[in-house]
C-alpha cells in the first residue's frame, strides 16, 4: 500500500494549494476586469453543487445501503425547486440583489422592518443547524482518513480519530479564513471562492462517476450483470414509505432554499440573473449524475465488503479493496472536495451573519461607535468574521465529539435540514404576502425552533445525553403529550416525519396567526412592498454593475426632472471636465453630489438623494429618506393648495366682474330702451300739437275747424302733462323718496273715491261690489291706495272687451292681510303677457287706449311701499288683479319693487 496517511496529507495540502492558486488567479482576473467568465452560468451552476456535501458523496451510498431508494428524496427536493419553482428563485435572487442582502438572516430581518431580533434569531438557528452539518463533514473526512489508515499495513499506531477531526477542523478554519476573509471588502462577492468551489464540483462529480464506472464495468462486469446483482441485493426488498418520501422531499426542497450556504452561492454570489435560467436545467442534471451510481456502488459494497463495514465509506473502501489506490485517492479527493467546499461556504455565510448581526452590533454598542468615525470598522468586521469562523468550526467539532462520531451521516444532515427549514414560512411569507409581520415571523420561528430542539436536535445527541430516557418514553413530568417523538399523543410516526410535520405545521400556523393579529410598522409595510413586488420595484437589476449604464440612467432621470437641454448640458460639461468623449461622464462622487444638488432644486433634497441612491444601487431607500420625501411633498402640497386657493379667488372675482358687467350691459340696454320709449311717448303728442299749431297758424280755417284743432292741441298737452306726472311719480317711488301719509281709512270709502275718479260713472262699465265686506278699517296711505284702485278700474274700463263690461270687486280678510280682487268679464290678458303688464311702457293689446303704459308699474311700486302687493290673478275668465294690503299697515322701508338687485 502506497497510500499512507502522510501521502494523504500531502495530497490534501497539494490539492488545497491548487485551489488557492485557482482562487488567486480568479480574483486577480476579476480585479483587472477580465472576470466575465467568472459570471458564466456554468460556474454559477457548479457553485450550486455545494448542496452536494460529503453527506451526498459518501452518505448517499450509505443511505441507499440502509434504506434503499429513499436517498433520492434529497435530490428530488432541489430538482423540483429548480425546475418547478424557477420563478421563486428568480424572485429571491432579484430581492437579494436589489436589497443588497448578505445572508438568510439579513433577508428575514430586512423584510420584517430590519428587525435585529429576527436577524439574531435566524443567525442562531442557522448556527445551531450548521453545527451538526460541520460535524458531519468532520466525521466524513475523519472516516475517510481512517478508512485509508485501516488499509495501510505499515500504518503508524492509529491515531485517535478525534484528533484527526480536530486537525481537520483547524485546517478547514484556516482554509476558510484565508479564502473567505482574504478580501478586505467584506460586502463584495468572493470570486476566488466561487471558482474554487466550481473546480471542486467538477472533481467530486468526476470522482463519483469514476468509482461508479469502475464498479459497474470493472467489478460487476457490465450493465446486465449489475442489474442482476441489484435484483439479488437486500436493497431490492426495500419498501417505500410514502410519508417519509413526501416529508423528505419537502424537507430537502425547504433546505435548498433556506440553507445559509445555498443562499450564499445562489443569491449573494449571483452576478447575473440569467445564469439561473441555465442552472434550472443544468443543476438538476448535475444532481442526476451524482445520484446515478449510488445504488450500484451500494449493492456492490454490500456484496463485497465484510459484515460490519461502514456503508458510508463504500465509495472509498470498494476501490481500496480492489487495490485501485489511485481511484481511491481520487474518490478521497472527491469526498474531501465535497466536505471542504461546503464547510468553506457555510462558514463564510454563517460568519457573515454572526459578525453582521451579533458581533458587530455588540461591538458598536460597547465601543459607542467611536471607531465608525475613525474608520477602522473594516478591520473589525474582518476580525469578527475570523473569530466567527473559528467559533463555527469549534462548535462543529464540539458537536462531533458530543454525538460520539458514530451516527449515520444522513441522519445528522437531516437534523440540520429540519432546523433550517424553520426559516421557510417566514421567508416565503415575506416575499409573497404583504400582510406578514415581524411578530408573526418571530412567533412562527420561535415555535418551530423550540419544537425542533425538543423533537429533533436534543434527541439526536444520543439517548440519555441531554433528554433523560424516561422523558423520551413518558414525557417531561409525566406529561405524555409532550413526548419528543409523539407530540400531542400522535404516536407511531417516524421521528423524522413527526418532527417535519409538527415543526413546520405549528411554525406556519404561528406565523400566519401572528401576522393576522398584529399590524406591520410603516417600515415593514415598505419593505414588504419592496419584497413582494420586487419586479415592479426593480426593472433594471443590472444597473449598478457598469459606470456607463449608471450614467445613462442618471441622464434619463435628470432629463425627466431638469428638462432635456439642461440635463444634457450638465452631463456634457462634466464629461468634458473629466476629459471624456461623448456626453456621459463617470459617476464620480463629486458629480453625484453636484447632480443631487441640481435635482434637489426641482424635487427637494431628500427626493433627489433617494433617486440618485436608487440608481446607484446604494442600499435601499431608508425610512428617514422617505419621511424627508414625505415632508417635502407636504410642503409642496401646502404651497400648491395656497396657489389653488388664490386661483379660485381669482376665478370667483372674475365671475363676479363678468356678472357685474353683464348686469351693466343689460342696464344700459334697458336705459336705451327706456329713453327710446320716453322719446316716443313724448314726441307722439308733440307731433300732433306741432302739426295742428302750424295748421292753426295758417289762415283760412273756419271756426269749427279752429275749435276742433285747438281741442286736439289741448288734449295732447294734457296727455303730455300726465305722462310727465307719471314719470316723476314713478321716479320718486323707485328712488324711495316718496312721502306716505299713513292714517286710518275705510276701504269702502277708498273704493268709492277710486270708482268716481276713474270715470266709471258714465255707465260704460258696471261695477259689482259687496259693501258689507268693504267696511274694514285700514291704517295706510289712502290716497296712494286709491291711486292703485283708480288704475285698476280705469284699465277695466279701457280694456274689458265684453259687450256688457262688468267689474266685480271682492274683498277678503285673513286677519292681517286684506285682499281685494278686481275681476272683469272680458277676455283677460294672454298668459304670455301676464308677466309683462307690470313693466314700464308695456301695453297689453295693440289697441290704442291712451296712457303710456306706466300705470301698473306705478301700482306695483305703490303696493310695495304700502307693505302689500299687486299681481295678476290667472284663470279667472277675464282680466283679474289681486291687491293685498296689510290691515295694520306699516310703512315698509324695503327696497322698491322695481329694483332688482
Amino acid at each position, binding site marked *: 500500500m502506497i497510500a499512507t496517511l502522510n501521502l494523504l496529507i500531502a495530497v490534501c495540502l497539494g490539492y488545497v494549494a491548487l485551489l488557492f492558486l485557482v482562487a488567486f488567479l480568479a480574483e486577480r482576473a476579476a480585479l483587472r476586469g477580465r472576470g466575465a467568465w467568472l459570471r458564466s452560468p456554468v460556474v454559477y451552476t457548479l457553485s450550486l453543487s455545494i448542496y452536494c456535501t460529503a453527506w451526498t458523496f459518501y452518505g448517499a451510498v450509505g443511505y441507499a445501503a440502509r434504506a434503499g431508494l429513499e436517498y433520492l428524496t434529497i435530490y428530488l427536493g432541489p430538482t423540483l425547486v429548480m425546475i418547478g419553482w424557477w420563478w421563486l428563485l428568480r424572485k429571491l435572487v432579484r430581492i437579494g440583489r436589489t436589497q443588497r442582502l448578505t445572508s438568510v438572516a439579513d433577508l428575514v430581518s430586512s423584510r420584517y422592518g430590519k428587525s435585529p431580533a429576527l436577524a439574531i434569531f435566524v443567525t442562531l438557528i442557522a448556527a445551531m443547524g450548521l453545527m451538526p452539518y460541520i460535524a458531519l463533514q468532520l466525521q466524513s473526512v475523519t472516516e475517510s482518513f481512517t478508512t485509508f489508515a485501516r488499509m495501510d499495513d505499515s500504518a503508524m499506531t492509529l491515531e485517535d480519530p478525534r484528533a484527526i477531526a480536530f486537525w481537520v477542523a483547524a485546517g478547514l478554519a484556516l482554509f476558510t479564513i484565508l479564502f473567505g476573509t482574504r478580501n478586505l471588502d467584506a460586502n463584495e462577492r468572493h470570486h476566488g471562492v466561487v471558482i474554487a468551489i466550481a473546480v471542486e464540483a467538477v472533481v467530486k462529480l468526476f470522482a463519483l462517476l469514476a468509482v461508479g464506472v469502475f464498479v459497474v464495468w470493472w467489478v460487476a462486469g457490465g450493465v446486465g450483470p449489475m442489474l442482476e446483482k441489484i435484483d439479488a441485493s437486500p436493497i431490492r426488498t426495500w419498501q417505500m414509505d410514502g410519508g417519509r418520501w413526501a416529508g423528505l422531499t419537502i424537507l430537502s426542497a425547504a433546505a435548498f432554499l433556506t440553507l445559509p450556504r445555498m443562499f450564499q452561492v445562489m443569491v449573494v454570489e449571483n452576478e447575473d440573473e440569467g445564469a439561473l435560467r441555465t442552472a434550472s436545467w443544468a443543476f438538476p442534471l448535475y444532481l442526476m449524475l451524482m445520484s446515478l451510481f449510488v445504488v450500484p456502488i451500494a449493492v456492490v459494497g454490500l456484496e463485497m465488503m465484510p459484515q460490519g463495514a461502514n456503508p458510508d465509506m463504500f465509495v472509498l473502501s470498494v476501490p481500496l479493496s480492489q487495490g485501485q489506490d489511485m481511484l481511491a485517492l481520487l474518490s478521497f479527493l472527491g469526498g474531501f472536495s465535497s466536505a471542504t467546499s461546503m464547510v468553506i461556504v457555510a462558514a463564510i455565510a454563517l460568519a457573515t451573519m454572526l459578525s453582521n448581526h451579533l458581533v458587530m452590533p455588540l461591538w458598536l454598542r460597547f465601543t459607542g461607535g467611536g471607531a465608525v468615525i475613525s474608520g477602522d470598522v473594516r478591520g473589525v468586521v474582518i476580525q469578527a468574521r475570523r473569530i466567527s469562523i473559528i467559533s463555527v468550526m469549534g462548535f462543529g467539532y464540539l458537536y462531533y465529539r458530543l454525538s460520539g462520531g458514530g451516527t449515520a451521516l444522513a441522519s445528522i444532515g437531516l437534523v440540520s435540514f429540519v432546523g433550517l427549514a424553520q426559516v421557510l414560512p417566514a421567508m416565503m411569507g415575506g416575499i409573497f404576502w404583504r400582510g406578514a409581520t415581524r411578530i408573526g415571523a418571530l412567533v412562527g420561528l420561535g415555535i418551530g425552533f423550540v419544537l425542533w430542539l425538543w423533537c429533533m436536535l436534543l434527541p439526536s445527541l444520543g439517548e440519555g445525553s441531554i433528554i433523560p430516557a424516561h422523558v423520551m418514553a413518558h414525557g417531561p413530568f409525566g406529561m405524555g403529550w409532550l413526548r419528543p417523538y409523539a407530540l400531542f399523543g400522535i404516536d407511531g410516526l417516524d421521528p423524522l416525519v413527526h418532527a417535519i410535520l409538527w415543526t413546520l405545521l405549528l411554525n406556519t400556523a404561528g406565523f400566519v396567526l401572528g401576522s393576522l393579529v398584529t399590524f406591520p410598522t410603516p417600515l415593514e409595510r415598505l419593505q414588504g412592498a419592496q419584497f413582494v413586488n420586487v419586479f415592479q420595484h426593480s426593472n433594471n437589476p443590472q444597473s449598478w454593475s457598469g459606470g456607463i449604464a449608471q450614467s445613462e440612467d442618471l441622464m434619463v432621470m435628470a432629463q425627466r426632472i431638469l428638462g432635456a437641454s439642461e440635463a444634457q448640458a450638465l452631463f456634457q460639461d462634466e464629461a468634458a471636465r473629466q476629459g471624456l468623449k461623448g456626453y456621459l461622464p463617470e459617476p464620480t462622487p463629486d458629480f453625484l453630489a453636484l447632480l443631487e444638488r441640481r435635482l434637489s432644486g426641482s424635487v427637494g433634497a431628500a427626493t433627489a438623494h433617494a433617486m440618485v441612491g436608487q440608481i446607484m444601487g446604494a442600499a435601499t431607500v431608508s425610512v428617514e429618506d422617505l419621511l424627508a420625501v414625505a415632508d417635502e411633498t407636504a410642503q409642496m402640497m401646502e404651497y400648491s393648495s395656497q396657489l389653488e386657493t388664490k386661483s379660485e379667488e381669482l376665478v370667483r372675482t372674475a365671475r363676479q366682474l363678468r356678472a357685474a358687467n353683464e348686469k351693466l350691459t343689460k342696464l344700459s340696454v334697458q336705459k336705451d330702451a327706456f329713453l*327710446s320709449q320716453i*322719446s*316716443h*311717448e*313724448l*314726441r*307722439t*303728442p*308733440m*307731433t*300732433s*300739437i*306741432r*302739426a*295742428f299749431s*302750424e*295748421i292753426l297758424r295758417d289762415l283760412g280755417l273756419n271756426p269749427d275747424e279752429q275749435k276742433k284743432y285747438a281741442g*286736439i292741441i289741448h*288734449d*295732447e298737452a294734457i296727455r303730455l302733462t300726465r305722462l310727465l306726472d307719471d314719470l316723476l311719480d314713478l321716479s320718486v317711488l323707485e328712488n324711495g323718496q316718496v312721502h306716505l301719509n299713513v292714517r286710518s281709512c275705510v276701504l269702502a270709502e277708498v273704493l268709492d273715491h277710486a270708482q268716481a275718479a276713474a270715470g266709471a260713472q258714465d255707465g260704460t262699465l258696471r261695477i259689482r261690489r259687496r259693501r258689507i265686506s268693504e267696511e274694514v278699517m285700514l291704517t295706510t296711505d289712502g290716497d296712494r291706495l286709491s291711486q292703485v284702485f283708480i288704475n285698476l278700474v280705469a284699465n277695466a274700463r279701457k280694456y274689458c272687451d265684453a259687450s256688457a263690461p262688468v267689474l266685480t270687486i271682492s274683498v277678503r280678510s285673513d286677519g292681517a292681510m286684506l285682499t281685494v280682487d278686481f275681476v272683469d268679464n272680458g277676455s283677460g290678458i294672454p298668459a304670455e303677457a301676464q308677466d309683462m303688464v307690470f313693466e314700464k311702457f308695456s301695453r297689453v293689446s*295693440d*289697441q*290704442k287706449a291712451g296712457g303710456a303704459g306706466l300705470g301698473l308699474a306705478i301700482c306695483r311700486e305703490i303696493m310695495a311701499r304700502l307693505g302689500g302687493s299687486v299681481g295678476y290673478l290667472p284663470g279667472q275668465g277675464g282680466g283679474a288683479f289681486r291687491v293685498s294690503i296689510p290691515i295694520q299697515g306699516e310703512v315698509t322701508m324695503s327696497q322698491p319693487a322695481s329694483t332688482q338687485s
Partner: protein
Amino acid sequence: MGKRVLVIEDEPNIIEAINFILSRDGWGVDTHSNGHDAVDVVLAKAPNLVILDVMLPGRSGYDILKDLRAHPQTAQLPVLMLTARGQNKDRDMAQRLGASRFMTKPFSNAEVLEALRSLVPQ
C-alpha cells in the same frame, strides 16, 4: 293731379293732421292704422307714395318696408318714414332698408309737403 298718398299711422290725431295738410295741398289721402295687413293695403291701393310710421301695432314699419322693397310692384315706390324714436340707429336702419326719406316726429308741415313733392314729381 290725382296723386295718391297712403298714410300708415296709428295715432288718430297725427293721421288727422297729415290728412288735413295733404288734402289741402291737393293729394288724395288714404289712411291705414295697423301693421298686420299694411303690405296688402299698399298693393291694393297702389298709391304714388306711402307715409310709414315705425311703431305700429301688429307689425313694425321696418318689416313692412322690407316686404315692400322685396315685392316687384312696390320695389321703387317712394316711402317716407316717420318715427318718434329719433335716434341715429333708427335713421340708419331706415336707410339700409331702402326708405326714400326719413323724418323724425315732430315734423314741420312744410317739410312733409316739400318731401312729398320731391319724391313724387308733379
